[in-house]
């Protein structure tokens, strides 16, 4: 892939990968290609990990319970100190968007491969994030950029000004939790009271805000890449509307059917926002898109699971770029240099029952992966691998790239047909059926489509 950063002396030569599974493999590959040494960590449940054999150091840091291993900041910092790691890559999930961890890493004299604690804190709180986005000219969902007051009359007036239906959200929430849709005025106050209590208990932050509830939006993302010298670009867009219970299942790049003159100003506004808040590394702006308009919902201040589809279309290795940005290397890439080509899909292959979606732990007895031009597989499993019940059920990401969306769908159908994982249940039957669906093939389906399609598929 292209060299996108001007060279200078790196800040570190050894990276500790504070994660597990496929993303641990992916980060290790990026580090090795950059000539960096790697330290992989594991819990006792992951001692079998293949990336342990290819790491320069492999250290077990705690028991299977993630709280005492992958979420144990002290144990991770200790492993870094013992192995001489100069940087920590958090991957996604676990501690990747944890303000105190980012700060603790930097306080220990190490480099956190991600944004600084201030940026994570700014974007982690939905209200401050919305304020920052409005200041940068990023379009947001209609609604005030302040927390809801306790006064009922004022809240009722805010809802009337926005127009029903509205959605009440926890400022510290995320992942589909801590939100409630209100269709009519009579349900407003009770919804606010319940959501506030949930927010207090689940997130330790009772602050709420209110927005217009969009009925049939799509979920569109914009990927950004920033250095520590004030340079930033956006790397195109993705459509992640295929969601089940707020969990993405299939992603694609670019988002189909959105004209360049509509999305380009939004992409540039995202870049502007990054420069205003002094953002560094990679990040994703998430939007709802309805009737030709974009509405900012949140920013993910980390590497995303679905980053490969953007890598396939942009030709830029996002993980390498993230590491170089953390090394303080200047981004040697102008916006005009970013040219997205063709179409890419990613399927998340999960160890779960295709009908009930319950996790399926156990030993993988045999595997067949697809091959061919434009087919990529990111995985950590192998024949004999035992899928643990302790963690996320994602076992592989199947990614394809082709000149057009229609060709990419055909390629994914072929790739899924050539994929076999024996010994455990997977969602492969469901993915194969989805890629035969006419409406999905047509494109531009909204975030509710998959749930409706699943009901019909199960009934059939």
């Amino acid at each position, binding site marked *: 892939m292209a060299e996108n950063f001007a060279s200078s002396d790196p800040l570190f030569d050894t990276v500790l990968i504070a994660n597990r599974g496929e993303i641990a493999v992916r980060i290790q590959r990026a580090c090795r290609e950059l000539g960096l040494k790697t330290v992989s960590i594991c819990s006792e449940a992951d001692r079998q990990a293949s990336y342990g054999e290819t790491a320069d150091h492999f250290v077990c840091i705690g028991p299977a319970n993630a709280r005492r*291993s992958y979420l144990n900041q002290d*144990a991770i910092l200790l492993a870094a100190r013992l192995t001489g790691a100069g940087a920590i890559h958090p991957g996604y999930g676990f501690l990747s968007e944890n303000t105190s961890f980012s700060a603790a890493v930097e306080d220990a004299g190490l480099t956190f491969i991600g944004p600084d604690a201030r940026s994570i804190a700014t974007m982690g709180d939905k209200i401050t994030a919305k304020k920052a986005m409005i200041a940068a000219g990023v379009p947001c969902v209609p609604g005030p950029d302040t927390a809801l007051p306790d006064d009922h009359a004022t809240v009722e007036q805010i809802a009337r000004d926005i127009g029903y239906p509205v959605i009440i959200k926890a400022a510290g929430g995320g992942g589909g939790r801590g939100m409630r849709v209100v269709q009519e005025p009579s349900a407003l106050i009770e919804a606010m009271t319940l959501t506030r209590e949930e927010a207090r208990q689940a997130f330790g932050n009772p602050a709420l805000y209110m927005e217009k509830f969009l009925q049939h939006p799509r979920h569109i993302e914009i990927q950004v890449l920033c250095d520590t010298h004030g340079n930033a670009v956006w790397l195109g867009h993705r459509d992640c509307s295929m969601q089940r219970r707020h969990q993405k299942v299939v992603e694609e790049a670019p988002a189909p059917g959105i004209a360049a003159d509509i999305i380009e100003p939004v992409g540039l506004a995202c870049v502007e926002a990054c420069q205003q808040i002094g953002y560094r590394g990679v990040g994703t702006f998430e939007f709802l898109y309805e009737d030709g308009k974009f509405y900012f919902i949140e920013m993910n201040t980390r590497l995303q699971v679905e980053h490969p589809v953007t890598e396939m279309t942009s030709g830029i290795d996002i993980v390498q770029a993230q590491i170089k940005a953390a090394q303080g290397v200047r981004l040697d890439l102008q916006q005009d240099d970013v040219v997205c080509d063709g179409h890419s899909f990613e399927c998340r292959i999960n160890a779960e029952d295709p009908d009930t979606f319950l996790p399926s732990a156990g030993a993988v007895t045999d595997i067949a992966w697809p091959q061919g031009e434009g087919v990529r597989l990111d995985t950590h499993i192998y024949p004999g691998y035992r899928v643990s019940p302790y963690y996320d059920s994602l076992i592989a990401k199947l990614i394809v790239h082709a000149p057009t969306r229609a060709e990419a769908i055909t390629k994914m159908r072929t790739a899924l047909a050539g994929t076999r994982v024996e010994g455990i249940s997977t969602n492969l039957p469901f993915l194969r059926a989805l890629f035969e669906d006419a409406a999905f093939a047509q494109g531009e389906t909204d975030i509710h489509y998959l749930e409706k399609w699943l009901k019909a598929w199960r009934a059939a």
Partner: protein
Amino acid sequence: MSRLDFTDPASLEALTEMLSAAGVEGLEISTPNAQLRLVISVPETVRTSPSAVALKPTNATSSTTVKAPIAGHFHVSHPSLASGAGQFPRSVVASDVIGFIRIGQILVPVLAGRTGLLTRQLAEQDALVGFGDVLFELGPQS
């Protein structure tokens, strides 16, 4: 990283809390000028030791292993002692310190965890070991 002040009660309290949270039962810190030994006292009824596979029964009835309670560099004996590794096999009781995990200046003792016959050393001297890595083989008393 700032140097620990052995005379500062707040530092010692913080260190003790970290130690308890990590599940280890004691540590030693040695510098050219001072030596500090902390032992965490836990009621026997709630005591759980990650340094041994199991605590009950306290007598080894079959071969088992003693595992590292935390990641660090393994020492089979106290670094300040001139003598090297102990003899094998040898009898030990549960509370015997049979090795150490060194983290910089900090030494975390490895306890036998049960009474038995220490038959083999499974980790190399000064090797980097992870949490739960096997250090010794412990068999029943003959």
